[in-house]
């Protein structure tokens, strides 16, 4: 029974990772940019939600919407100011700028409100119910459902809609995409807007679920989301979902076995093993470069 409980614990943790990883992998897949600032957008989302609930007295869903909106704009602004100029630069230059942006957001936040953590208001009281002795909180079911829905939605957007096709075209060859009549700037902005809105939503949900937010909260989940995205195969949306869940379950099981100190190490070992056997991630097509 304990192990089933642990599996439930792991899936809840994993759905949080998945939630962040979805937006991450989308931007990643399309712009080919490891957007280190994704974790910080997630953090800003959490704080926007917090102030919306605390300061403006909004309910959970209006606050969630507001956070998504603010983060979408933030994502677009970051892209326009910091990344746009670097579209033709090396990827590593863009990555370094992203790191700079990430530090900048962290420390500006600290500058304005200090580094201390904040307790999240209890707007979505969790009811625990038991099934065969395993206790499951309504919140974790909520998160799992939300992340699955978002995954389906994203997958649909990217693969079935016109804007999604435009995104993929831009991702491969922006100049050729322009020749199709695609507005590259707008398409990239849309990508950032959607990805960042997802990060914002994840921030609020994280806040509600764990009850604690702070200016540096984006670093670890951002890193884990990166791992989940790579584990699933860069740019592959269901891959991010599975990667996130797998990571959550593995981490929980390691803790459950009494090796909580080795939790991240084991997670990384599994990641590396998987990559050694599937060098492009779980769902990545093993497509060799055609010469």
């Amino acid at each position, binding site marked *: 029974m304990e192990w089933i409980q642990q599996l439930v614990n792991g899936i809840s943790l994993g759905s949080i990772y998945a939630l962040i990883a979805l937006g991450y992998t989308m931007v990643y897949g399309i712009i080919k940019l490891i957007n280190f600032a994704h974790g910080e957008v997630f953090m800003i989302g959490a704080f926007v939600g917090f102030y919306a609930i605390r300061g403006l007295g909004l309910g959970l869903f209006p606050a969630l919407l507001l956070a998504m909106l603010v983060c979408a704009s933030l994502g677009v602004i970051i892209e326009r100011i910091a990344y746009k100029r670097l579209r033709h630069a090396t990827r590593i230059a863009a990555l370094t700028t992203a790191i700079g942006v990430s530090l900048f957001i962290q420390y500006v936040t600290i500058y304005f409100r200090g580094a201390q953590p904040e307790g999240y208001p209890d707007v979505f009281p969790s009811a625990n119910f038991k099934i065969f002795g395993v206790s499951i909180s309504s919140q974790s079911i909520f998160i799992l459902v939300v992340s699955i829905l978002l995954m389906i939605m994203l997958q649909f957007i990217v693969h079935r809609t*016109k804007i999604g*096709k*435009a995104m*993929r*075209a831009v*991702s*491969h*060859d922006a*100049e*050729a*995409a*322009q*020749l*199709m*009549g*695609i*507005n*590259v700037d707008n398409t990239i902005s849309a990508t950032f807007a959607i990805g960042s809105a997802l990060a914002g939503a994840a921030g609020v949900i994280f806040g509600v679920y764990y009850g604690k937010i702070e200016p540096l909260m984006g670093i670890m989940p951002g890193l884990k989301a990166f791992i989940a995205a790579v584990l699933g195969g860069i740019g592959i949306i269901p891959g991010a979902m599975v990667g996130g869940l797998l990571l959550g379950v593995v981490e929980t099981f390691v803790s459950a076995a009494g090796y909580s100190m080795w939790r991240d190490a084991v997670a990384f070992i599994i990641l590396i093993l998987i990559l050694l056997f599937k060098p492009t991630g779980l769902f990545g097509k093993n*497509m060799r470069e*055609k010469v």
Partner: protein
Amino acid sequence: MLKVDELDVFYGNIQALKGVSLDVRQGEVITLIGANGAGKSTLLKALSGLLKPQRGVIDYLGQSIVGKPAQTIVRDGISHVPEGRRVFANMTVQENLELGAYLRKDKAGIREDMRQVYERFPRLLERRGQLSGTLSGGEQQMLAMGRALMARPKLLLLDEPSMGLAPLLVQTIFQIIEEINRDGTTILLVEQNAHMALSVASRAYVIETGRIALSGTAAELQASEQVKQAYLGGQ
């Protein structure tokens, strides 16, 4: 239809086009021949908006299109098949074709054109679900042509469409060029294969190191000793 006057284009400090002037009339096939690095692709890119000319005039259907972004020029009816195929490797053949019709809203028309493209290139129909990145060079070239046709352009800019194609396909491609032209599309064709190009074109320009060196009807140029020497393998 298209009038280019005194066009200068730079890459950084390097001047790739030096005062190029030419004109294209409705319904023509114009070909542009010239050695490697002469500036042919540069000219096409300037026309389709991928490059911004530093100086000069480009009038298209009586309107200046200098400085317009590429995506709006497509809307005006100029389609550009770039050098080196440039298909969307991570998407299927079908999706590439759909993207060709990105700006169009007429579903029925799109479907009809799609059918026509598949008819012209049966190989593409065979491979419609395959990721275009794994297509062979020739297959990719067909796809690039088909994709541009999906926009139903008024003016089609073709940059070395026969490059890397099997002889049979070169013939096919040139047949298609003639067909497209017969159906009312004006074509500006850049080619290395000067024989073939001159045989389908009505008029031609020869470009050398960024300048128009010669121009005239296709027949005139085919007869010119200078052209024979430099571009036809001077037999």
